[in-house]
């Protein structure tokens, strides 16, 4: 597998060929929620709707559980995942907070952003992060 020079950026999921292939069906499911008919069908029976996409069992469970970080680890891209949190009529900060580590509530994430966001210092690379 090709190693990329951004692989040492911590906690970051780039939609490259590796995630593209792993997450193809998952992302296409997420994108289907652009259509109001699809949103209605998903809302009516999430499990049945997910059966119409070729997701792995892990991916399916992550969607049902709204485990957003797990979804990214299984190939989802955040712009696609945005459709799911919107479908749930929640602000995106709910999703961002769930993906962040340690996880944060909406209020905690919002407070971090209001205070200037997560600092870049210490977060540029895995090495820098370990050095604190």
């Amino acid at each position, binding site marked *: 597998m090709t190693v*990329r*020079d*951004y692989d040492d*950026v*911590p*906690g*970051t*999921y*780039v*939609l*490259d*060929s590796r995630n*593209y292939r792993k997450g*193809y069906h998952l*992302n*296409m499911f*997420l*994108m289907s*929620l*652009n*259509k*109001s008919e699809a*949103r209605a069908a998903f809302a009516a029976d999430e499990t049945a709707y997910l059966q119409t996409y070729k997701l792995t069992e892990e991916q399916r469970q992550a969607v049902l559980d709204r485990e957003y*970080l797990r979804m*990214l680890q299984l190939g989802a*891209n*955040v*712009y*696609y*995942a*945005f*459709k799911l949190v*919107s*479908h749930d009529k929640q*602000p*995106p*900060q709910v999703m*961002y*907070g769930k*993906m*962040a*580590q340690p996880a944060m509530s909406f209020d905690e*994430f919002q407070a*971090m*952003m*209001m205070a*200037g*966001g*997560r*600092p*870049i210092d210490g*977060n*540029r*690379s895995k090495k820098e992060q370990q050095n604190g």
Partner: protein
Amino acid sequence: MARIIAGMGTSHVPGLGAAMDNGKTGEPYWQPLFKGLEPVRAWHKDNIPDVTIIVYNDHATSYSLDNYSTFTMGVAEEFIPADEGWGPRQVPMVMGHPELAWHITENLILNEFDMAVAGSLEVDHGLTVPLSVAYDQPDVWPTKVIPLCVNVIQYPQPTPLRCYKLGQAIRRAVESFPEDLSVGIWGTGGMSHQLGGERAGVLNPEFDTAFMNNLVSDPAANTRLTHTDFIREAGCEGIEMIMWNVMRGALNDNVNEIYRFYHIPVSATAYGAIILENTD
């Protein structure tokens, strides 16, 4: 001949559009942002071009893993604001300028920029939020629009240098259009932000400030950044800023900075806007 009069860079955060659409701009969270946009809007009111080229990206709305071209020109008569998962924004239809769009497209392809051509394209917040930034809430957008959609989502995105060169080629194409038209060009997206992953919420005001400084006085410096520079320093989604390079490439070497505004946060994003006018 047609000529480019000015450029704007602006973030296109969806929350900004939602705040306007839902009448929340006076709330304490939003008030400082919209206060800072007042000079942007005042300038736009006095400088409405016949046509505006809006360099933006689609967010899994009209394009997806199934088909996402590096550069796409919108040549349609009109572009419908899309339903991107929460219902379409209630904003005016975006009217195109097919004649100029086709002229630029032909000129670009014949000069080695292999553009995709979209005759039907629903536009998402990446394009409509900048219109709202500039023109607030009119019944009709005061400028015609040529959408130029750039892949900034799927790796590998075009290089920052390629984006700048595309801007230069757009300028030559515009200037070879026989009709006397004024043209604006906007680079959208950014500034620093990372929406996904354990590092979500990372911002980098120093990087953003340097990027804006370079836009004014040393645009070549912004073309030497790599994909990884953006991902590492400006957050995974901060790479959207390469679209500002297209805008800058279409301007003169020397520009006047008319106005700059920077505000943290808008949702999980550092908001930035800059207006640059060509000097003679």
